[in-house]
């Protein structure tokens, strides 16, 4: 299974963190710092895999963002690269040519998409279409939910 996924920029700013095993806040911070340091130190021509503690780190850079996953010993690193790529494709389809800013300003949506694609460190659905459709429908549900409010209500006068 995937243990966690991190998205961060070249400047070391965390944009998304998904943990699939219970980890204390302190440990999370420490891990994130350590991994960011390791991955950011890698040269462009180097291999996408790193060994770290008892896990394998699979990372790929897309424009200004690093996508970094930790998988277990028995997991297939090459397919993990494809998992990362699939997630990027989903974001891209959803946001329309996704860039880092989209993920910064709509981080909760990025999480929603991730949670529709992966669960407990495993893939839920291998169909891009299916995942995107589910998100779309959930978004619709969210819109319907938000009943229109009157101006007075907004002003707190009614």
């Amino acid at each position, binding site marked *: 299974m995937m243990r966690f996924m991190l998205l961060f920029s070249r400047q070391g700013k*965390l*944009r*998304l*963190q998904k*943990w*699939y095993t*219970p*980890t*204390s806040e302190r440990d999370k*911070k420490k891990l994130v710092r350590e991994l960011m340091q390791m991955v950011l130190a890698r040269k*462009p*021509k*180097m*291999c*996408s*895999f*790193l*060994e770290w503690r008892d896990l394998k780190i699979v990372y790929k850079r897309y424009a200004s963002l690093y996508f970094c996953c930790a998988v277990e010993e028995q997991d*297939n*690193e*090459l*397919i993990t*690269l*494809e*998992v990362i790529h*699939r997630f990027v494709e989903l974001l891209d389809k959803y946001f329309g040519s996704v860039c880092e800013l989209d993920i*910064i*300003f709509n*981080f*909760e949506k990025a*999480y*929603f998409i991730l*949670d*529709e694609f992966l*669960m*407990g460190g*495993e*893939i*839920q*659905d*291998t*169909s*891009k*279409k*299916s995942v995107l459709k*589910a998100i779309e*429908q*959930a978004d619709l*549900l*969210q819109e319907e*939910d*938000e009943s229109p409010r009157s101006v007075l209500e*907004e*002003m*707190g*006068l009614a």
Partner: protein
Amino acid sequence: MVSVTYRATREDSSVFLVSIQPRMPAPIRLRELIRTIRTARTQAEEREMIQKECAAIRSSFREEDNTYRCRNVAKLLYMHMLGYPAHFGQLECLKLIASQKFTDKRIGYLGAMLLLDERQDVHLLMTNCIKNDLNHSTQFVQGLALCTLGCMGSSEMCRDLAGEVEKLLKTSNSYLRKKAALSAVHVIRKVPELMEMFLPATKNLLNEKNHGVLHTSVVLLTEMCERSPDMLAHFRKLVPQLVRILKNLIMSGYSPEHDVSGISDPFLQVRILRLLRILGRNDDDSSEAMNDILAQVATNTETSKNVGNAILYETVLTIMDIKSESGLRVLAINILGRFLLNNDKNIRQVSLYTLVFGYVALTSLLKTVQTDHNAVQRHRSTIVDCLKDLDVSIKRRAMELSFALVNGNNIRGMMKELLYFLDSCDPEFKADCASGVFHAAEKYAPSKRWHIDTIMRVLTTAGSYVRDDAVPNLIQLITNSVEMHGYTVQRLYKALIDDISQQPLIQVSSWCIGEYGDLLVSGKCEEEEPIQVTEDEVLDVLEGILVSNLSSTVTRGYSLTAIMKLSTRFASTVNRIKKVVLVYGSSIDVELQQRAVEYNALFKKYDHMRPALLERMPVMEKTSTNGPTEIVQTNGETEPSILETKHMPNVPQPANQANDLLDLLGGNDVISVIQTAPPTKLVSAGGELLDLLGDLSLSGSVPAPGPQVSISQPPFLLDGLASQPLFNDVAAGIPPMIAYNKNGLKIDFTFERSNTNPNIAVITMHASNSTEAEMTEFVFQAAVPKTFQLQLLSPSSNIVPALNAGTVTQIIKVLNPQKQQLRMRVKLTYTHKGSSLQDLAEVNNFPPQSWQ
């Protein structure tokens, strides 16, 4: 937003004060907050903004404002991602989850997943909400609940809600079914005892058409099979269905929904391959059932993109792990070899993709080298090239693999590459590489001189990285190489005058000079041009070490002791030595002081004992100390030489080398093992060993296997300090047996268990001869099935005296990690009454205690 208050005076109704109070504005929107925070130019500025907003959010929470709770929690989550504390939002998440609005639930569950893991006290409060939402009328709400449970539910929560998950696992709604499957996986991981309750629901999982359900079902089945041998046995019947699904994926035409670069649902293919691996392991029938599909995937998958290679990689892992046919295994190894070549070519183009590839291939090869030496040996040169790669991960794998591939045949070439690597590699590799070189040299050194030279090379080029325990080992080795003493001390002396900074080198050199200093000044050396050095020059060097700031205390100790020992080996400088020893009697270093004082005493009061005490060290018994933790690998020593020899024209066998390889790997299910250090003349062991495997009469000049080092015991890497014997004298209660008894030759086996590894059985072969003529040139060989490993030590002799006047004994060690029934095929050759005889026999009557 203002509230207006008028105040009237008492006397008249003229106008007066109007006070305008601002009311609490609506909390700012998420995007606006993000925008604002991003304008902060310093960390301090950011912190200030955050604190201000947190205060506002706290007030808003206190007001129990339902309207803006969602917005506030979202902002809190953003700030949490920036690294600021957000625990005061935990309860708010719970309230959001309990809300009826979908938007609230969405953010609430997200917040719960980010802030409310099982370590938090309030975690369990979610249980009821989740339970209700699992039964919600809207599937997206159910989905949120399943996701939260499946990502971070605690054991207790899992126990409470497992029933709900099980229910949903049986639903016909594929959107929910796939999520339920992964929730079940999580529940099983947290509470393995609950696995049983999900068994009924797994019945029809693979009948689904929906790929999401299929994929998650395969994950669930995998989890169950990995955790329970009973489940594994139960699910073996699914192999045909899994094979069918995989076949459909490969054969089906283009399916846009699941296509990735021309491959249909590679994620599902990989998971199925992994499940097949688990089901096929150790099971002949299952392995056979999947043989064809594996071959199909292996040969038909496109290798131009990463996705195809991901599938091939998984396929190779599966092939190597199940009981596959030999042809399939060779196919798998060749795929790995191609992976490496890919890497090789593209290094020049410096393509990231193939570098990724090479790393993966090397890791797989490391796992396979244990069992398919010869096929992997073919790729040795490619692996060695990877030592020169720029990527640290690849270099490390290549180094590990290179050491695993070293054997008696390739030792010279491999060592050249590895020493070159040692010279130029990063410091982080040097210690491991040095150790590996020592180990390999000890096992396979073709000559003593080569061995010493190799050690010298390591000491001089990576001397400071050599591990401390190497020094005593090396000293022991040098002591035992009696005829090389002159050469060794000369070379070490030369190295010493060049450089006195590398402690292990100085220690070994000092010791040597102390021991063999007489040879050094003798002006004689057999192996190379002798150097002319005087006793005073030698003492200058040793004293130099004593005073140098670079020398550690331990090193100084070695040096002082060496100087002392030279007092009995040097003729003309005894007085100088006495003076040095006297001086150090008042050294501030306690260790040195003590030595010097004792040596002084030796000069003063016990001078008559001095020669005896400082005598030359005897050859040390190489009793294998705490024993090997694994049997020495044969590393396919004979096989590569088979591939390299040409066939003699009169060999009736088909000249196809690939076939021979297959026969060796699979034909008779035995692997031959060579004996180490044959006692006297070498019998041409190569060809005969092949015959052992069932009449492959490949002949041709095969170089004698094994090292030429004439040590009497097997070349295990010694931990020079421990002195525990390899095995107990007391037999571990295993009854002896007669392995062979024909034509007057009787072979008995007696058993002992290795002290250190219960999987190793130590068998002593006793050969006796009841005829009236002796049996000369007696050679005993043995082979065992694939799952075992065997090592033969040298025999006591190769003459079996007549009329049971004596026995030839030989130790056989068998490693049996899977505790399978021991079987052995033996081959006996000897000369009797002038004719050459040989016989093959199966030994199957091993007592159960020897392998259980």
